[in-house]
Structure formats: C-alpha cells, structure tokens
C-alpha cells in the first residue's frame, strides 16, 4: 500500500530541501539523527535541537507557536516520535494554531537505535493528523513535491502536517556540539530578542 510514485529521498536530502526554504522561523528538531543531521546541514540560532525527551517535539513547538502567534513555527519530527506522543496530534488539532507546520520524516524504523520497525508501516500518520484536526495534510516523497508543499504550508494558515516518506539511510554525523543550556539561550534570544 504505497500510493506514492517517484524517487524516495533520504531524510537528510529531504531536510536539506526544507532548510533551504527557511530563514528565521523557529525550528524544533526531534531527538536522535534528525537533530544531528540538521546541525550538520545548517546550524542556526533559530534551531532547537533535542537530545532526549522523545515524542515531545510538537509539544515544544506548540508552546512556541501559542506564545508567538505571528511567527511560523516548524517542527521536524519522525514517525517513531509521533507514535510516542500521538496525543499531541489531538492537542494541535484542537488548538488549531495557524502558525504551526509539522513535518514528519517517515522511514518506518527507529533509526537511531538500530532500525527496529515502527508501526507507521501499517498506521497512516497523515490520516491520524487529518482526523485529529490538522487543516492541511500532505504525504509526499519526491524532492519537487517536498519543496512545493512545504513552501505552500509556510505561506498559509495551519496547522499543517507534511509527511515525507524517506529511506532508512542516516548520514554519518556526529553529535550536536552545543551544550543544552546554550541551545536554550540562543534559541530564546533569536525568538524573543533578549
């Protein structure tokens, strides 16, 4: 049951497409390889890299989005993460923050711990988000589709969820070299100006 056609990207390839389209938007990136890849691809003070607390990236993003309704907040998440904190799809769907863009890289495995399968192979997370009340939901895999849909979501009212089917491939990346309090301080400064 794979309705998508075309070439599947690695998560890092897909992430690079997204980061190119971003400027000063707050971006929350989930723990594990996604944060490490984002840090390597483009480190910005507006990036909040998670190193633990799996499953709560969209909750952090929701907190930012509610406090700063004029800023478009982007969450870069994974399928294992969404499954762990699936209740937050309901919170977002109910609160309906217009400035919330939730990207889910779906590789159907727990990639940071040895590629054990997740349930996203049989559970359509995009449909769960739709049912929970996300306003715009798209499921893509092609590079051009990723860029088109993400640009579209950045420009219109959400909450939006972009599910990107990606390969299991992870980049050879080191850990995020910033101390967690430093990540907090510079993100806060970038968002609030102080």
């Amino acid at each position, binding site marked *: 049951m794979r309705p998508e056609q075309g070439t599947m990207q690695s998560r890092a390839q897909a992430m690079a497409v997204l980061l190119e389209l971003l400027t000063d938007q707050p971006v929350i990136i989930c723990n594990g390889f996604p944060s490490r890849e984002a840090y390597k691809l483009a480190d910005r003070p507006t990036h909040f890299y998670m190193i633990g607390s799996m499953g*709560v990236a969209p909750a952090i993003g929701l907190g930012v989005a*509610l406090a700063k309704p004029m800023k478009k907040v982007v969450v870069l998440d994974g399928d294992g993460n969404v499954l762990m904190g699936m209740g*937050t799809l309901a*919170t977002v769907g109910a609160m309906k923050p217009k400035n919330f863009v939730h990207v889910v890289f779906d590789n159907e495995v727990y990639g940071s711990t040895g590629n054990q399968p997740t349930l996203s192979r049989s559970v359509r997370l995009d449909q769960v988000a739709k049912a929970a009340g996300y306003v715009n939901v798209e499921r893509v895999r092609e590079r051009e589709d990723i860029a088109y849909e993400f640009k579209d979501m950045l420009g219109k009212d959400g909450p939006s969820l972009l599910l990107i089917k990606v390969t299991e491939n992870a980049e050879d990346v080191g850990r995020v070299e910033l101390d967690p*309090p430093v990540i907090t301080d510079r993100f*806060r400064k970038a968002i609030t100006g102080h």
Partner: protein
Amino acid sequence: MIESDQFVQALEDIGFNFFTGVPDSILGGIITTLMERQLYTPAVREDEAVAMAAGAYMAGKVPVVLMQNSGLGTSLNAIISLNVIYRQPCLLLVSWRGFEGKDAPEHLVMGRTMTHLLDAVSIPHRTFSEATAVEDFRWAAQTFMNERIPFALLLKKGIVKGIQP
C-alpha cells in the same frame, strides 16, 4: 481556604502568564478560574504539558504546569531530559493525592514517595499552605529566576477551593 480566584491572581501578579496541564479534582477550581480568564491550554499528558511550558518559556513566557502527582511519573523523563538539562524553568503546581495514605489505592505509593522522588532528581519543592502563602509565592518567583529548572509547589486537598472542596 483560599479562593481559586485569589490564588490565580497571586500567580499572575508575580508574572506567571502561561498555564497548561492535566486536571485533578484538587486543582479543579484553579483550572476553572484559568479557563474563565482564557489563560489555560489543556494538555493530554503531563509530559506534553512540561514540553509546551519549555517552548513557551523559550518564547518569552513564564509558565506553570498543573498536574496530579501521578503525572510526575508520566512526565519525569521529559522533566529531567528536557526542562532540567536545557535549563527551562517552570512552576509545577502538583496536587498531593495520597497524602498520609488517605486516598484511593492508586494514589498511595506516589503519595508516600513523591517528595523522595523529587529529592532524588533534585527538583526543588515546597508545600503550599494558607498561612505561608506569601512566602510560598515569593519562593516560586525566586526559584524561577535563580534555579532555571522546574520546581514543584505541592497542593494538598482543602487548601485552595476546588471542585469538591
């Protein structure tokens, strides 16, 4: 007994301005007041609530998370692997179910061990009372500024007017 309106006003007066959490009967009056004032964002789980508080803090807010003490169990990993290590402060307003063993069975273990649990993970805590209310609120404001980690104000039944006083 303190009116929930007074309690919320005191929190607002010292600067708290973002409220989320998961309900408990002891907290019911406070949550009703917060909802009337349109200050409350309901969460579905306590780890979601502390993460929302972390985001709100980084966006300039001064957050409070309301929860039953059972929620400390649910949210402990987020508290210690997000809020604590990233230095994202919030006031945890925690209802003390199972206090002195007088509660339903599911509350007894957490009721007995909660303060030890908080001590074990170095979360500052203090038990709120009407007689010490002024100092309790001052402690909350100072701990937020000085410690920059989550800290808990524990609320027993019958101190602030709840849904079932």
